[in-house]
């Protein structure tokens, strides 16, 4: 009985809230009164089946007009201080939206200190922590930073907003996306984040293999088994498995690169000494296009990466216990095992993603 009463009251409260929202949408002129055309996120079949529902902030729904605007901004150098550098210059479509240079060069000509990151499958990032060190806690917040980073676009928000506002085209595009011609940093980052969320990669050879559309070669299959075998590669604890098509655990680890850290990684953000030298486990999708590898782009080839795990591990106090063979330098793979592991890793690359016309300038 008491539960029934409670139910009824909750129902009334819900009604009242519905009534409120109905009311306010009728008001003309208000920003949130305007709704652009909804654009549902396209999820690959395997994602829908295996992964939690994508994270899209309630205050920034995907829309046709928002995504189109975000795309234009992403490829436009107008956001940089001297109009020379676009997001896309360090996040190139042909490289799965990362940079083939070890360190990208900002507008002042000085390099950054981390390797750029590929951009895809953001809505499924279960930790919603971005950057190598997890310093950004949403895509909207991430998009706020590069513009004013001195080694990237070296601009200020007031300056960038003024350039956009003075432009012949942008105010109209912002009106279509957000219902107002008045541009601000929040709307810029919202539009970019919407575009970034459309960058979905889910059609690799391995995906098609899981869907029964393609078979792996013997070498690729062996490589997958090495990847999944705790006594051999043991890669899956951090980099996903066939039930985790993101190919990352969305978490942070020290994978034994250095004995001392030039870059504190996650520890620099949290201040926790136990987290010094921890970096985000990168997704292993699209490795064919994303060299060089690691947070500082130290490895040019996948062979070097595999050699690292096989015999190059270095001890430091925060090394992950999953790097269990550090005393022997690594998991000691044979030449054949290394070749098979590499063949498997390459089946996670998605040629359709890098040539998708929706993602080109």
């Amino acid at each position, binding site marked *: 009985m008491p539960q029934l009463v409670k139910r009824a009251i909750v129902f009334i409260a819900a009604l009242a809230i519905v009534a409120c929202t109905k009311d306010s949408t009728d008001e003309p002129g208000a920003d949130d009164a305007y709704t652009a055309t909804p654009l549902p996120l396209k999820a690959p079949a395997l994602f829908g089946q295996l992964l939690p529902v994508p994270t899209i902030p309630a205050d920034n729904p995907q829309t046709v007009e928002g995504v189109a605007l975000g795309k234009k901004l992403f490829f436009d150098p107008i956001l940089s201080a001297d109009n020379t550098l676009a997001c896309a210059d360090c996040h190139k479509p042909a490289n799965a939206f990362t940079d083939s240079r070890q360190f990208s060069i900002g507008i002042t000509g000085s390099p950054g200190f981390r390797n750029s990151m590929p951009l895809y499958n953001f809505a499924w990032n279960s930790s919603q922590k971005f950057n190598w060190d997890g310093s950004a806690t949403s895509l909207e917040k991430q998009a706020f930073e590069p513009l004013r980073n001195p080694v990237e676009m070296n601009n200020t928000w007031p300056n960038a907003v003024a350039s956009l506002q003075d432009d012949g085209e942008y105010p109209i595009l912002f009106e279509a996306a957000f219902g107002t011609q008045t541009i601000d940093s929040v709307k810029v980052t919202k539009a970019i984040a919407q575009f970034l969320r459309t960058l979905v990669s889910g059609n690799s050879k391995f995906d098609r293999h899981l869907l029964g559309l393609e078979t792996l070669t013997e070498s690729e299959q062996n490589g997958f088994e090495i990847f999944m075998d*705790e006594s051999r590669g043991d890669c899956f604890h951090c980099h996903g498995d066939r039930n*985790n098509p993101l190919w990352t655990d969305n978490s942070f680890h020290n994978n034994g690169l250095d004995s001392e850290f030039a870059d504190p990684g996650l520890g620099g953000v949290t201040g926790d000494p*136990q987290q010094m030298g921890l970096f985000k486990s990168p997704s292993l999708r699209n490795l064919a296009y994303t060299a060089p590898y690691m947070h500082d782009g130290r490895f040019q080839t996948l062979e070097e990466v595999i050699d690292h795990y096989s015999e190059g591990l270095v001890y430091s106090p925060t090394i992950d*216990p999953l790097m269990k063979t550090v005393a022997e330098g690594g998991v000691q793979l044979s030449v054949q095992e290394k070749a098979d592991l590499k063949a498997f890793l390459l089946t996670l690359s998605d040629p359709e993603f890098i040539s998708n016309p929706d993602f080109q300038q």
Partner: protein
Amino acid sequence: MRTFALLALAALTLVSCKDVDEDIPLRTLNFTQNWDGEPFSQADLATTAFVNENNDTLDISRLRYLISKVRLENSKGTVFQLDDYQLVDVSNENSLTVTPSAYIPNGTYTMTFVYGFDQQDNIDGAYPDLNSVGWSWPDMLGGGYHFMQMDGTYDLDAAIPKPYNFHNGTARVSNGVFEANHISFSIPEVRVRGRGIIEIQMNIAEWFRMPYTWVLDDYNTSLMPNYEAQKLMNENGASVFAVVTE
């Protein structure tokens, strides 16, 4: 103005809703960890040293485990579901508490739960939230999910401590032959009353104690494909959990 009034009304109804609630016990299911009574929490990860039954010194840098089918049954046979499954991750405070949606009256119950997933629930790939956090158990070892992942180092006085990966799940007898490895608990006379807090406690030290005194030099890493190690964990697990209510 009108919006305001409606909001006020909504607020009022919510407030009165709370008044009505006063005599409805709101239950909380907590998962806590301890080492022989010393609470173990996030701050202890990778920092606090312990000595196990075999006198090995060790630390724990990651501790995650799965508890499923948490239920209370009263003397009339009515069953109340507290939780379907919960991945407890000591590094994530949100994972340590669950508020059951069922209304549970005060009373004395038999509480049942499963450490890990039983065969019915241990379905490969079936749980999206578990898939995306690296919790799957490899297909070649029977598939499904991990039941526990405890990682850390031992021999702490050595220049370089040795790693251990205490991972538990389905046991592989031989190629293609697997054995279920969960543990079902049934705890009689659980009295739910007062603040309505129900706590499932894990005494981590017990994993290393009984009946098998765990020797980390014998069993440390690559334990997932190791049938003996998997069964020893299962046996030692029987004395690991306790339930208290408050």
